[in-house]
C-alpha cells in the first residue's frame, strides 16, 4: 500500500480512474433511473411513489459506506501513518454529507404519501439525521486541522468514534419499534420483487461509481492545493 504513498504514483492511477468512474457511473444512473421511472411497475400499495427508492436506497447506503471508509482511513492514518489516508478521509466527508442530505430529503418526500407525514423522530430517521450532523462536524474539524492536506489526529479519532453510529443505523429497525420498515435486502435474500430489484442494483453500482469519482476528484484537488501552497511558500522564501 505504501507504494501509493507517493502522490505522483497515486495521481497517475487516480486521473484515468476518475474519468472511468464518472462516465460509467452516470451512464448506469441514467439507465437505472430511466428504467425505474418509465418501465418498472408501480407498487401494489405505494403506487408510483415507490420509484423514489431508486435514488433513496443508493444514497443512504453510500452515506453509511462513506463514514465506514472515513473510519477505516482514520485507523490507517493513526496506526500505519499512511500519508494518503487522511486525504482520502477528507475527500469522502463532503460527498458523504451530500449523499446523507439527499437520502434524508428523498426519504421525506417518500414518507409524505406513504406514511402520511414528512418527518418522524423514530430510531432510523433520527440516527441518519445524527449521521448528517456527524459529517458536518467532521468537515468543520478537518478544515480546522493545521496539517497540510491531511487531518489532525483529533479529527481521525472523531472519524473512528463516529463510526459507532453506523451499526446503530443498521440495527435501529431491529432493536426498536420504528415507523421505518426493516431491511428488505439482507444477507439472507431480498423481499423486493425482482422487477424493482434490478434497476435498483444498477443504480446502486452507478451511484457508487459516481461517489468514487467525486472522492477521487476531491483527493486530487486537496493534493493540488497542498502543492500550490508549498510552491507559494518556496517562492516567498526566495
Amino acid at each position, binding site marked *: 500500500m505504501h507504494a501509493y504513498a507517493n502522490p505522483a504514483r497515486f495521481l497517475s492511477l487516480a486521473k484515468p480512474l476518475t474519468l472511468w468512474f464518472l462516465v460509467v457511473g452516470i451512464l448506469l444512473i441514467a439507465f437505472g433511473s430511466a428504467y425505474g421511472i418509465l418501465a418498472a411497475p408501480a407498487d401494489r400499495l405505494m403506487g408510483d411513489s415507490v420509484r423514489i427508492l431508486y435514488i433513496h436506497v443508493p444514497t443512504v447506503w453510500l452515506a453509511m459506506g462513506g463514514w465506514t471508509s472515513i473510519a477505516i482511513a482514520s485507523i490507517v492514518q493513526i496506526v500505519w501513518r499512511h500519508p494518503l489516508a487522511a486525504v482520502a478521509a477528507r475527500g469522502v466527508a463532503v460527498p458523504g454529507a451530500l449523499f446523507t442530505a439527499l437520502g434524508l430529503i428523498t426519504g421525506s418526500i417518500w414518507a409524505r404519501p406513504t406514511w402520511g407525514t414528512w418527518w418522524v423522530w423514530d430510531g432510523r430517521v433520527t440516527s441518519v439525521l445524527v449521521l448528517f450532523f456527524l459529517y458536518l462536524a467532521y468537515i468543520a474539524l478537518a478544515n480546522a486541522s493545521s496539517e497540510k492536506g491531511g487531518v489532525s489526529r483529533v479529527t481521525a479519532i472523531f472519524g473512528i468514534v463516529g463510526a459507532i453510529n453506523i451499526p446503530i443505523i443498521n440495527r435501529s429497525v431491529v*432493536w426498536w419499534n420504528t415507523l421505518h420498515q426493516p431491511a428488505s435486502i439482507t444477507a439472507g435474500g431480498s423481499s423486493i420483487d425482482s422487477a424493482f430489484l434490478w434497476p435498483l442494483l444498477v443504480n446502486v453500482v452507478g451511484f457508487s461509481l459516481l461517489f468514487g469519482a467525486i472522492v477521487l476528484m476531491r483527493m486530487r484537488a486537496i493534493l493540488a492545493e497542498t502543492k500550490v501552497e508549498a510552491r507559494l511558500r518556496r517562492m516567498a522564501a526566495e
Partner: protein
Amino acid sequence: MGLFRYAPIGAKGRTVEQEKMKAKHQRLTLAILALVALIGASLLAAYALQDQASYFYTPSDIAEKQPKAGQAIRLGGMVEEGSIQRGADGVTVEFVVHDGTAKQAVTYTGITPDLFVEGSGVVADGKLTDGGVFRADTLLAKHDENYVPRELDGIDMTGAQNKTETLVQ
C-alpha cells in the same frame, strides 16, 4: 534496568526498523482496544434504551404496562383483517390493531393515509379512553419490507375482484 532506560533506540539488539514495528503494533493494539470499548459501550447504551427509544407501543406493551386513561401514548401494530368499520359521518373509522398476541380497539376521526388497508401496519398517536378504546389523534401508515408490483398482487386480489365486477355487468 536503569542502564537500558537511557540506551538509544537500537539498543537491546533491536534495529531501528524493529522499534518502528513495535510502535506500530502498540498503536494497532490501542486502536483495537478503543474500538472494542466503543462497541461495547454502544451496545450497552442501545440495550438500556430499548424501551425509551421505541417509537411506539404494541398492543402487548399496552396490555402489559396498563397505561392510565388519558395518558398520551403512541400505538403501533397491524390492522386486523375485516375489522375496519367506517362511521356514518364518513370520516370516523373504527378498527382493531393486533401484534399477533394482543389486540387493541382504535377509533380515529380524520383522513386516513393511502396505505391504511386491512392487514397493513399503522402507528397512531392518542390516548386510551375509560372504556379501554384507543382514541387516535393522528394516524400514520407503516410500510413493511415487501415491495410487490401491482400486476403480481392482482393475481390473488384485484384480478378476482375485477372479474366479479365484469361478470356482474
